[in-house]
């Protein structure tokens, strides 16, 4: 890999590890995010590293506990969505025929529906929906994209001779899907998973900001909701809204960086590529060029 690509992977991994650790271990080190025992509207200080909210809650505690909340929702959502995508996408490709038509139609229909409004409508019906419900709703709207991509890749694999050979040996479709086709799709599935996590974090933040889903469960999006509804933006209480926003952005960045690295791995394994670097010809060392110069008025050749 080129040096700057290596660095981008390292940054991505570093950020991701940071946030995961924050989510897993962080809450043990901070106080109760809902406790209102701090000063009101206070900026960052020794006792409250990221200041307090308008009712005296510690922003740092909220941030750390919020990390757990956000990541839990994202991970559950991505897991459900990925399983759905595999089940629908890969199966429809391998089975082909009528099954493929039906499942593809279903996938495309889900794809076409605008997701955020749909999520808003569904989640809006469920007052104070808990994390799991939100996760399910996000998964239900996020699986179709991955399903399409996995289907496309599985289709090209299906036509490969080794799948045909497995059929000729007498293998049933289920075994072909799980043991012959799926192993080749693992990098792609990993990339898709990360993609859905990204979609989930954005959607969940958006939902929470709109006040959908439980506003007492702490997530980064919830922090933004409360900050907004308490005029924190107008009052320039940056310590309240910048940290959660920044966390969302950085987490998303980490996912994108990792995803492009995995994409490259997935591509290399599935597709044979000709070297893409430009045709550079080394200039030959000195030597009798003979009469070739007579053909041209002495030009330099680029190295």
């Amino acid at each position, binding site marked *: 890999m080129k040096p700057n690509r290596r660095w981008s992977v390292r940054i991505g991994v570093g950020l991701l590890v940071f946030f995961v650790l924050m989510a897993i271990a962080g809450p043990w080190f901070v106080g109760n995010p809902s406790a209102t025992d701090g000063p009101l509207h206070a900026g960052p200080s020794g006792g409250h590293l990221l200041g307090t909210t308008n009712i005296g809650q510690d922003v740092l505690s909220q941030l750390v506990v919020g990390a757990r909340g956000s990541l839990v929702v994202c991970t559950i959502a991505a897991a459900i969505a990925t399983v759905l995508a595999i089940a629908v996408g890969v199966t429809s490709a391998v089975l082909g025929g009528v099954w493929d038509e039906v499942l593809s139609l279903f996938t495309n229909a889900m794809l076409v529906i605008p997701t955020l409004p749909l999520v808003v409508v569904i989640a809006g019906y469920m007052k104070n929906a808990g994390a799991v419900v939100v996760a399910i709703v996000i998964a239900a709207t996020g699986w179709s994209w991955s399903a399409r991509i996995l289907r496309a890749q599985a289709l090209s694999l299906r036509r490969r001779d080794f799948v045909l050979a497995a059929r000729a040996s007498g293998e049933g479709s289920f075994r072909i899907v799980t043991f012959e086709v799926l192993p080749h799709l693992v990098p792609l599935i990993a990339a898709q998973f990360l993609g859905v996590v990204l979609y989930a974090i954005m959607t969940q933040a958006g939902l929470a900001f709109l006040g959908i889903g439980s506003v007492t469960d702490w997530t980064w999006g919830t922090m933004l909701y409360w900050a907004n509804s308490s005029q924190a933006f107008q009052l320039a209480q940056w310590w309240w809204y910048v940290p959660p926003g920044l966390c969302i952005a950085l987490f998303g960045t980490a996912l994108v960086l990792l995803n492009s690295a995995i994409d490259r791995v997935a591509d290399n394994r599935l597709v044979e590529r000709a*070297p893409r670097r430009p045709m*550079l010809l080394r200039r*030959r060392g000195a030597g009798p060029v*003979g*009469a*070739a110069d*007579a*053909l*041209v008025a002495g*030009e330099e050749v680029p190295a």
Partner: protein
Amino acid sequence: MTAGGMSTGGMTADGMSTGGPGQGPALLEIKDLTVDYGVGPGAVHAVDRVSLTIRQGEAVGLAGESGSGKSTLAHAVTRLLRDPARVTGGEVWYHPPAASPAAAVTAGGGIEVLGLNKRALRKFRWQEVAVVLQSAMNALNPVLSLRAQLTDVLREHQPEMRRPQRTARAAELLETVGVSPDRLNSYPHELSGGMRQRAMIAMALALRPQLIVMDEPTTALDVVTQRQILDELASLREQFGFAMMFITHDLSLLLETADTIAVMYAGRLAECAGAEQIYRSPAHPYTVGLLRSFPPLSGPRLELAGIPGSPPSLRGLPPGCPFAPRCQHATEVCTQTAPPLAPPAADEASGRLVACHHDRITADATEAAS
């Protein structure tokens, strides 16, 4: 050896031209060419000190299997190598015949192809040497008609030509290769594979080059179309007198159509001789084995053995002769020192060359062939 005068660069020190026993002035001389993939100790010699001469009007066949380096050689000679392949040694000398445009400019000297700068290279390409690569029929631009692509070549290299002249010439070229001129307006996807290949050959002929390098031109075509194209090439050669470097894994094709055949193995030349000589009395055990890999269409149905094992990976080639692991006549010297390419002891004056310590001209091949 060259047409008109001495070249200003190196001829082989001993004055003898390397390569087959063809007659006539040399057109293209490849001297000790080496092409590497990668750098440093891990570098792989895709072409290892290969020397070959193509004479004016001669059809030279280059035969070999995967890893033999034949395609790499063709790319190196036409300066089409891509990273990570690089020429790391040797020279390629082009001696234009008196009649070609290049001769006027070079004043009877030779041109060292690998050292040409960009502008000179563009003049050299297509005017003197044209290339038809593997799956060339896929090299046609799918959104341009045949007319556009043929006239484009003409416009590039002969800017003084007017449009009606170009179209007329394009039509003429198509007719030469056996495609009806009313296909000028067709797009590549409307033509069959054979027609597209013929169109590529027509493009190669556009400027009446002295040499056409063809890399597996008929491999992707069916047997009947292949035969047609080979016949057409032969009649075109008679008509225009260009030389041909024909690269293929199908030795049986070369036996029929080439004047001289060079057999490559693991990047090196194993044997170079006239087609008849190779067929009747192959000297290198690899050539013998190759000949035995083609079941005949007539004669008794004898069991053939082919060659045990498979072509070697070029990484970590053992010292000595690269064919030794598969050779039934190999002895200790074969595994230690690489055999030099030299005329066989029994037949020194014939002009043929073979790289084998044991220098055999075996009679077995005649049994298998008849």
